């Protein structure tokens, strides 16, 4: 009995699940090899990872909180990539959202409820402005969005650096290069007393559902999907490409911005270059791994949040460096990307008369 490996006509759900499981298994195996290489007790490391992520209620809450900016950045990725608009500016848009929210918060003094609402809105607007800029550059000047979003990442981060080092935003007498602490009245309220579950968690859940709803049930979501799947046919059928570029990048940027605002006003309570670093980029991985599907992005964000939380535990309990944790995330991404390729093939028996 001989087998051969041949291409399927269409990937089935079963083959996708099967290949995802293989991807996870291989990813774990590769990570284990990596850990073994750096002389870490593999069992202890994975044990710490799991406990740290979901071991007890407190850790679960921690994972949820860590998942919030990842979910927002993941949704930003999802909505843009579904339109085949390659937003790689989540990193900068996260910062822009946090920065806009901070700036606005320093100027307003409304009743508590309105204050928070305005701050959140400012977070969205900050990221949206950055996204819209890339969209306009593409619509009017045909500037490739990958180029403009990536370059804006640098620009925004340097703008923040300037605002901080020029002492415009830096608190007087501070040693570290960061803003003053965000006053309590401006911080996102805690959902469950005694925990660190802030409003951002609820907003993230709402966002996941909202993006899912928009993509599947609204005419705009329909146009995004049509445009992403076949932009030429979409254009012939009345969907305006320029409108798509600007709107989608604006909303995408806005979602990432919300993530930045939620993180700064719900967890960090300060703006600095270090706190928000990497959230946007990880969001890209989250979005892609989830197959650009909003509900899946929620799950993937939770998993990555868990890995981040558990990673801290791994560092402490099993003496694993933080670089290894990032490497493990990258390994998982690579195996996931390969798994979607794998689901298109299958093993079949060679017929006797072939």
């Amino acid at each position: 009995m001989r087998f051969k490996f041949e291409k399927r006509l269409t990937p089935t759900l079963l083959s996708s699940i099967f290949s995802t499981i293989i991807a996870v298994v291989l990813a774990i195996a590769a990570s284990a090899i990596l850990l073994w290489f750096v002389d870490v007790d593999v069992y202890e490391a994975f044990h710490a990872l799991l406990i740290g992520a979901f071991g007890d209620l407190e850790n679960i809450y921690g994972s949820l909180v860590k998942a919030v900016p990842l979910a927002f950045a993941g949704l930003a990725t999802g909505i843009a990539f579904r339109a085949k608009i390659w937003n790689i500016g989540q990193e900068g848009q996260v910062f822009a959202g946090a920065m806009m929210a901070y700036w606005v918060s320093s100027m307003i003094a409304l009743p508590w409820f309105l204050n928070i609402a305005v701050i959140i809105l400012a977070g969205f607007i900050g990221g949206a402005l950055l996204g819209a800029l890339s969209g306009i550059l593409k619509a009017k000047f045909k500037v490739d969005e990958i180029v403009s979003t990536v370059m804006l990442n640098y620009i925004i981060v340097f703008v923040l650096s300037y605002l901080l080092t020029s002492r415009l935003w830096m608190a007087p007498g501070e040693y570290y290069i960061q803003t003053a602490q965000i006053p309590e009245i401006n911080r996102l309220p805690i959902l469950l007393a005694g925990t660190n579950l802030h409003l951002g968690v609820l907003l993230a859940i709402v966002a996941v559902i909202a993006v899912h709803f928009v993509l599947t049930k609204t005419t705009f979501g329909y146009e995004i999907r049509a445009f992403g799947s076949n932009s030429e046919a979409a254009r012939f059928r009345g969907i305006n490409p320029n409108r798509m570029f600007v709107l989608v990048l604006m909303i995408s940027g806005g979602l990432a911005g919300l993530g930045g605002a939620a993180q700064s006003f719900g967890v960090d309570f300060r703006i600095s270059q270090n706190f928000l670093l990497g959230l946007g980029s990880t969001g890209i991985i989250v979005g892609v791994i989830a197959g650009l599907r909003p509900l899946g992005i929620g799950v993937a964000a939770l998993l990555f949040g868990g890995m981040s939380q558990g990673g801290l535990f791994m560092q402490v309990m099993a003496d694993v460096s933080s670089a290894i944790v990032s490497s493990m995330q990258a390994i998982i991404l690579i195996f996931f990307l390969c798994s979607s390729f794998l689901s298109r093939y299958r093993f079949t028996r060679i017929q006797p008369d072939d």
Partner: protein
Amino acid sequence: MKPHLRVENLTKRFGEIVATNSVSFEVQRGEIHCLLGENGAGKSTLSKCIYGFYQPNQGKIFLDDKLTTFNSPRDAIANGIGMVHQHFVLVTPLSVIENVVLGTHRVGWKMDLDESKNKLKEICDRYKIEIDFEAKVWQLSVGEQQWVEILKALYLGAELLILDEPTAALTPQESERLFRIIERMTDDGLSIIFISHKLNEVMQSKRVTVLRKGKVVSTVETKSTTKEELTTMMVGRSVMLQVKRKKMSAGKQILEIEGLRVKNDKGLPALQGVSLTIHANEILGIAGVAGNGQKELFEALIGARNVENGQVRCQGEEITNQTPKDAIRRGIGYIPDDRYRSGLVSDFTVEENMILGVQNNPEFSNGSLLNFPKISQFANESIDQFGIVTPSTKAITSTLSGGNAQKIILARELWSSSCCILANQPTRGLDVGVIEYVHNVLLEKRKEGYAILLASEELDDILALSDRIAVIFKGEIMGIFETGTTSIEKLGLLMAGQHDAV
């Protein structure tokens, strides 16, 4: 007399799909043999197995009664089998002679073409093929390019020539010339297999093997059968080959096109001052080989391509350089020549494609929310009305056959259009049964008062459907005639660009 080629019980599978199912037929030396069948009947797969491009799962191929196995086209070529594909594989910046010797495995590093030129000249003289060896391929017409492809095969010593849809891109005169030279070749002992679904071509053969769904229906002597009989064998039921068009007097002007100048994708002029008028109750047919500006004309009319100069008016309103959204709003329907590029989203479900372009219509959405029950209802009604074969409205469109996908476009455009229909090669790649359907639909809309602009490579279709015919060549209208007032010969000459034919 032993046959030149004999195919016995050939079966070729692709995964679970059986493309050819136990096919047997034979070709005598010096015979013109036609493989006739609809899309998906298996004729292309069969010929690719004969040519060594595919290896059959089962079955045997005999050349002069000797069992042969071809592992690649190289083996087939070495055994005297040549193939001319429907889509040419020429290197356009190179000359004719350079293309002919390409890949012929000459020994040595010196490029000495004299010997090759002599050999090629001998072939051309034998069959009276006239072509300039030094001409660059891009300078040649489509018909001349086809001769280069044929010469490539003859140069390598082909004794059996397989031609895939040979007259798809030729004018009537060029087709005529092709078959005259083919006759000369077969008189000389060459065997020809040509693959076709065009009944006019088929009648030029000596015998025809009809394939349907991968199986041989029958092999018959061409002169003892009729087009109708062959169509019935191809399709499995009798099909009306020519729709009946009743004469109607044209109504008021609906679409006025004046001096249209449009560029193609390469920035070169595609339309050089085209002027046409289409009236209600009228079908204006555009005759011409594909690539003479038809695509650019239609795209400019619906707003998908920029108009450099000129004017377009619809029911008196100026619509030059409108957006596609405007065109849909104004009730202009568009049936594209490449349905999956400009008409459908292949990943979408049938019902999603049914509303592509009209998703914002209050029929299908409340404000920004899609109204799924209404969308499904519309899709189901269309499926019934147009006879679309699909397991459900939620099936993915790419799983449908070309004909059924085209019907989705028809259903959609007929629903959303109100004054005119622009149909660019609406029956390209479709089976005979569906072609009959599309023609009837167009005639029906004509009766209802629509203005219809129809472009087609099939001159027969243009003649059957159009009230007036405009011939297009290199972006210019060569002439506009009432159907029946001009001969096919004259139209063919105009299609080939000869101005003084009128």
